[in-house]
């Protein structure tokens, strides 16, 4: 029976080729546009560190003066930590692991004379960074707590940068000249760049920035080269008038801080610790705002707070869904008109013994066919759409491609859309009263 219905449906669709093509095209465009934007949204909101992200948290302190005007929509200084606060949290050791970090850019002098000096981007951080985020190493390892204390001149490179500098040879133990000083390579990581680069400062390009090196934060801060060949990249925000040492100033924020907490009890304890710390700072007169402003964000919660998805992308998604809505209404109206025009045929079939269910299935199959064809077309169109997004200048553009889950999602959307669109017309068709129609014939 099923194959017979398919044959009937195909015959009916072939009878009106232009209309069928238009319906397929409309649903294809609607699904293509929607899936393009949903895919973009999906890759932008994906988990940057599956498996580990559930245990990573971002402490948020609020050292701003009471009268400081914060911008509810923009970036605020209290998104980062001050040097004293970061060091206090780091040395308190209240989490399983903790690391302070800041984005950096250094001028690198290759030993090979055929390569010009160039700037590379990376992070200044503390030793637990590598274990906490599970950075995979090709050779060597990160530096140690002792290196942090001693402000050792050590560096971790990514595989790409190590290859560029030393070719295929082993890089660990070699030296790299950053600015005017030599640093010893202690480890080479795989090319590791979580998307989005969740631990970066709000000014980063979260989807396209890649860290090429990691340096001990303590060494950088002690270095005479800071602000010369070694720079902090990212927001450095201050709210005091003093013209002192900018980065160590207790009213200048520039550091990001991440902690690893494995159990709910640890999370609760750490949250309380942050509030207690803030209360202590307030009683010392450093903080002015209520200690309960201190918060602990989960990784995904922090990304949401950072509001990484541009409004444009969200608007385009709503637009695409609106367009899909128009296309679906269009198809329902056309199928309905088409089915009801065949009332005569339906009546004859009913009079010959077909049940309403049979009619429903027959017409349901016809609309499902339109949907499947539209879905296939939509899949193709969304690939073109994603390709065109990859040509765009945006930060996230290069990520725009479908993973298996989105492919399945597209097919599902197509089926759901077409079944929804076909349901009403098929239901109306099976309710055609046979006697009346036959009489009119």
């Amino acid at each position, binding site marked *: 029976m099923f194959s017979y219905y398919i044959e009937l449906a195909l015959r009916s669709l072939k009878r009106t080729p232009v*209309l069928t093509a*238009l*319906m397929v095209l*409309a649903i294809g*465009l*609607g699904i293509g*546009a929607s899936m393009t934007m949903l895919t973009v949204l999906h890759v932008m909101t994906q988990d940057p560190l599956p498996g580990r992200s559930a245990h990573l948290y971002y402490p948020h302190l609020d050292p701003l*003066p009471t*009268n*400081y*005007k914060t*911008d509810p*929509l*923009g*970036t605020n200084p209290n998104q980062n930590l001050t040097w004293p606060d970061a060091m206090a949290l780091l040395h308190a050791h209240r989490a399983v692991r903790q690391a302070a970090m800041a984005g950096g850019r250094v*001028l690198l002098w290759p030993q090979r004379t055929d390569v010009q*000096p*160039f*700037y590379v981007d990376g992070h200044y951080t503390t030793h637990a960074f590598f274990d906490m985020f599970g950075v995979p190493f090709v050779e060597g390892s990160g530096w140690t707590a002792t290196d942090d204390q001693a402000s050792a001149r050590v560096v971790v490179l990514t595989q790409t940068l190590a290859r560029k500098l030393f070719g295929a040879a082993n890089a660990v133990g070699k030296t790299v000249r950053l600015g005017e000083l030599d640093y010893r390579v202690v480890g080479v990581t795989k090319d590791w760049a979580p998307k989005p680069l969740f631990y970066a400062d709000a000014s980063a390009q979260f989807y396209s920035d890649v860290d090429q090196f990691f340096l001990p934060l303590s060494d950088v801060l002690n270095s005479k080269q800071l*602000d*010369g*060949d070694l720079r902090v990249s990212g927001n450095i925000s*201050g709210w005091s*008038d*003093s*013209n*002192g040492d*900018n980065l160590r100033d207790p009213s200048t924020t520039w550091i990001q801080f991440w902690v690893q907490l494995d159990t709910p009890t640890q999370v609760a304890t750490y949250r309380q610790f942050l509030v207690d710390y803030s209360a202590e700072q307030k009683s010392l007169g450093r903080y002015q705002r209520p200690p309960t402003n201190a918060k602990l964000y989960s990784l995904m919660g922090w990304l949401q707070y950072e509001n990484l998805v541009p*409004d*444009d992308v*969200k*608007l*385009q998604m709503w*637009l*695409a869904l*609106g*367009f899909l*809505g*128009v*296309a679906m*209404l*269009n198809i*329902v*109206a*056309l199928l*309905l*008109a*088409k089915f*009801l*025009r065949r009332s005569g045929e339906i009546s004859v079939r009913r009079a010959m013994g077909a049940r309403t269910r049979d009619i429903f299935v027959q017409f349901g199959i016809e609309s499902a066919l339109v949907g499947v064809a539209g879905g296939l077309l939509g899949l193709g169109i969304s690939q073109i759409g994603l390709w065109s997004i990859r040509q*765009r*200048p*945006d930060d996230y553009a290069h990520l725009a491609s479908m993973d298996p889950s989105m492919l399945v999602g597209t097919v599902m959307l197509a089926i759901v859309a077409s079944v929804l669109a076909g349901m*009403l017309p098929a239901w*109306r068709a099976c309710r055609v009263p046979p006697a009346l129609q036959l009489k*009119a*014939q």
Partner: protein
Amino acid sequence: MEIQPILAALRKHKIPTALIVLEIALACAVLCNAVFMIGQRLGEIHLSNAIDESGVSVLDVRGLDPEAMAADVPRDLAALRGIPGVTAAAAFNSLPLTNNGWNSDVATGPGKLFEKNAPNVMMYMFTESGDKALGLQLLKGRFFTATEYADSKLGGSYLPSGHVVLVTPSLAGRLWPGQPALGKQIWIGDDLHYTVVGIVGNVLRPSENGQGLSGFYHSLFFPISPGPNISNYVVRSAPADRDRVLRDGVRKTEALLPNAVVKGKTFTEIRDKYFADSRSMVWMLVLVCVVMLAVTAFGIVGLTSFWVGQRRRQIGIRRAVGATRAHILQYFQTENFLLSTAGVAIGMLLAFGINLYLMQHYQMLRMPWYYLPASAIALWLLGQLAVLGPALRASNVPPVVATRGG
């Protein structure tokens, strides 16, 4: 034209009628908002900027020795001025639309910085003859004197130590509404203050910086003597010479500063890059509108064609009892007009609602009222155009059809 029979006929096809009305409504709502967004983007792309955009080139120099800059920069600028065709050259801390903001809140008196209405502004700083290099347009007052350039150095908080400043009319209006700005003082914190000596045409900031379009012209200009962090060399020439001047400039600077990384760009390139996102958004919106209107039109064509096919016999009867072709044509046109009217009426409400929602969640502005009737008219025209084909076919149904069976 009697509309009573049309309404009666539509009542017999309640669901398709409702669907097509909904489709038109949705299309109208999306169209209104999309066109509004296109308008906003185009407005941004074409924002005016009171500098010599077509004559300015920028050399972004990185990796300079901070301690040698006080001597190196004047030497480099002198070399750049020696290139044939260069009319002026100066060093800047940053430039419009480069996304490299030096922002601060400013106030009109000491200690008022944290007040709610203290505006966030961009602080441009340039070395001697920077006004000529960028092509600033003096509206009132004067530019800086040689002493003012020499006396101003960059302090530890990245603020200049001088005491004079130029403002844009946009910022002057925000700080001192209705009052003359010349001679007034701008304060940052309790110690630093600057006297307004001139007003220059509205210059854009390096980026909108979350301030909205109203704050996009909130720029200040300070004189500065050559030193660390003032490392964007601006070179001005006639537009015809610009590309050659830029090439020569990059070569000369690289020769003078072998350890530095020099990147040259014309200001036109900088502007294009800044608005590239907006431009691609405009194209995407236009595409969606066109395709959506096409789908709506095809929907109308398809549905009306079916109705025409269904009513061949009735049309034949009407023709047989004296209706002219024009009558039949008018029938379908009026029917479509009614459907479109219902559609755009709902659509305008929907469009307004969507706009309110977007205003709440996405920093969207209120849509001016005329977008609603404009898109209503667009959909009416689209409907009439779409219905013309099937309606003409209907009017060609010969009266003899009436006498034939089903």
